């Protein structure tokens, strides 16, 4: 009697395609259930578009100083005014969006992959390994992210890559937790049992069968944590640990605006509004999606 081995072992590519497809379906359903998600997505995508198009649409060079035009209020020439060095605020906000979004997306991307892998592994293996890993994650979760980020950036130096790493490190524990809970719930379901009975490898079960089931939740948390990451990046820049000047960052612009707040309050105001738009957009998006994905809230509306 021959044992039927799985005919063809799918690669990681197939696993991730399946996960992405599952997420997309869940997300589309969620969007239809909650209209505010659309508003959030719109705000966020608009900012992404502006950031991508910054080199084309920014009216001035964000680094170009013009001492004669310094601290100008908003005008037809400079829509959002100029800063202490006569640089155009609108152009700097557009270019600053690139920094904020790059660091935010990179850090949450890293945290999502690493954190989910840890959570998936921990939940799947279970037992003592699980206890030790999750205790460690809980402990790290308790530590203030801003303080940890501050110290890591101070040690590594403030480059875009280092900021992304520092923020990613602070965001790994929540993703591990988010991925672990559904893994435990899913791992004893019939379809996983069936897979095990068919002799599928642990790798195949984890990535091919469990991951697509937990992917939507991870993705939703990703959008909420992206909001946090952008806020933390701005906070670090405000403290003076962002990407070094003269590169425009929103947090750094608010800091400079704060120094001139008595006579040119708009310098601090406009980048604040930019942060608000992105973070609010992501929160609206994530909130709406979470309501739809979270099984506890299903059937409530």
């Amino acid at each position, binding site marked *: 009697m021959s044992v039927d081995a799985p005919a063809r072992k799918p690669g990681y590519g197939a696993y991730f395609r399946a996960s992405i497809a599952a997420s997309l379906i869940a997300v589309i359903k969620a969007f239809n259930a909650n209209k505010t998600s659309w508003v959030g997505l719109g705000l966020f995508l608009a900012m992404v578009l502006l950031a991508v198009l910054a080199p084309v649409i920014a009216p001035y060079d964000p680094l170009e100083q013009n001492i004669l035009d310094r601290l100008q209020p908003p005008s037809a020439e400079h829509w959002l005014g100029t800063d202490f060095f006569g640089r155009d605020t609108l152009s700097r906000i557009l270019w600053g969006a690139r920094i904020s979004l790059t660091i935010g997306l990179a850090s949450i991307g890293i945290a999502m992959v690493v954190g989910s892998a840890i959570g998936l592994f921990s939940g799947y293996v279970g037992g003592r390994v699980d206890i030790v890993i999750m*205790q*460690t994650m809980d*402990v*790290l*979760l*308790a*530590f*203030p*992210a*801003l*303080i*940890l980020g*501050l*110290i*890591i950036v*101070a*040690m*590594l*130096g403030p480059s875009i890559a280092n900021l992304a790493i520092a923020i990613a*490190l602070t965001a790994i524990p929540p993703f591990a937790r988010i991925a672990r809970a559904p893994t435990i719930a899913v791992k004893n379901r019939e379809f996983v049992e069936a897979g095990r009975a068919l002799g599928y490898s642990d790798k195949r079960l984890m990535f091919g069968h469990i991951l697509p089931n937990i992917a939507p939740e991870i993705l939703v948390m990703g959008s909420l944590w992206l*909001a946090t990451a952008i*806020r*933390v990046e*701005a*906070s670090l820049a*405000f*403290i*003076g*640990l962002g990407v070094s000047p003269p590169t425009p960052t929103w*947090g750094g612009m*608010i800091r400079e*605006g*704060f120094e001139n*707040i*008595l006579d040119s*309050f708009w310098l*601090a105001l406009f980048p*604040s509004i930019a*942060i*608000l738009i992105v*973070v*609010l957009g992501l*929160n*609206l998006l994530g*909130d709406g999606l979470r309501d739809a994905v979270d099984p506890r809230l299903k059937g409530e509306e």
Partner: protein
Amino acid sequence: MTAFLLKRLGFAFITFLAVLTIVFFIIRILPGDPAYAILGDQANEQALQALRARLGLDQPLFVQYLEFLRGVAVGDWGVSLVSGRPVLQDILEVMPATLELTFVSLFLGAVIGIPVGVWSAVRRNKLTDYIARSASLLGLSLPAFVTAVLLLLVFSIQLRWFPVISSGQGATFGERLRDLALPAINLGLIMAAYITRVSRSAMLEVLNQDYVRTAKAKGLSFAIIIRRHCLRNTMIPVVTVVGLYLGILIGNSVLTEIVFNRPGLGKLIIGSLYQRDYPMLQGMMVIYTMIVVLVNLITDLTYGFIDPRIKYS
């Protein structure tokens, strides 16, 4: 009760050690030489080695770790490179200002957040609910330094109601209060945003319970149902939040202290980052770890009081 207390204390101690260990190794594993960072590019090898020896960095990692733990245990946290005074002394000096700010903010956050959250849940999907939810979402989306700058702009610069710089050292109670007002309102409103959200969702969950329907069926008045049957059960998730969002509270308190130029742990840690005051930074990590573990212990114990079932499970 004693067993419950002892178990929690033991657990808190282990957590404290674990966080200290993780934080210690994160700092040490990161690339970058503190001696080099402190002295800069121009320093010669001799000076670097002398500083490394002074900071104990020439010892093997494990010896450094034991020495670090010993120092924490006996209260020898090293000497600040900037002030030349013991780190612990510098920290304890500014602690009260930070504690004052956080406690008052937390109180404000609870006093505003809990009623608004409960009210918002009761009036679910009505206008008041939408307003409360939008306001709390706005509070969650604005970084603490942005709200701080806005408050300063409006109330200190335009209206001149409060001082632009709060020293936190006011001689009289009235002066202290005036100094505390804006920073506490800033931090308090942000905490209120978080607490509103959690109170609302906790209250919604409780309102769906069978015993609430029973209470309604008995003909109890709505106020009594809320007060006697719902509030206590709503409190557990709310207390959890205080523990869970402590990290956010601490981070925001740092930003608030910087904007309002208020002495405290936040200003101390930023100062030591700029000055590369390595022993001070290490001390700050220890004190933050202590605060985090202590607050988690207190939240755990509070559950026991709010919900007696937890004590015995």
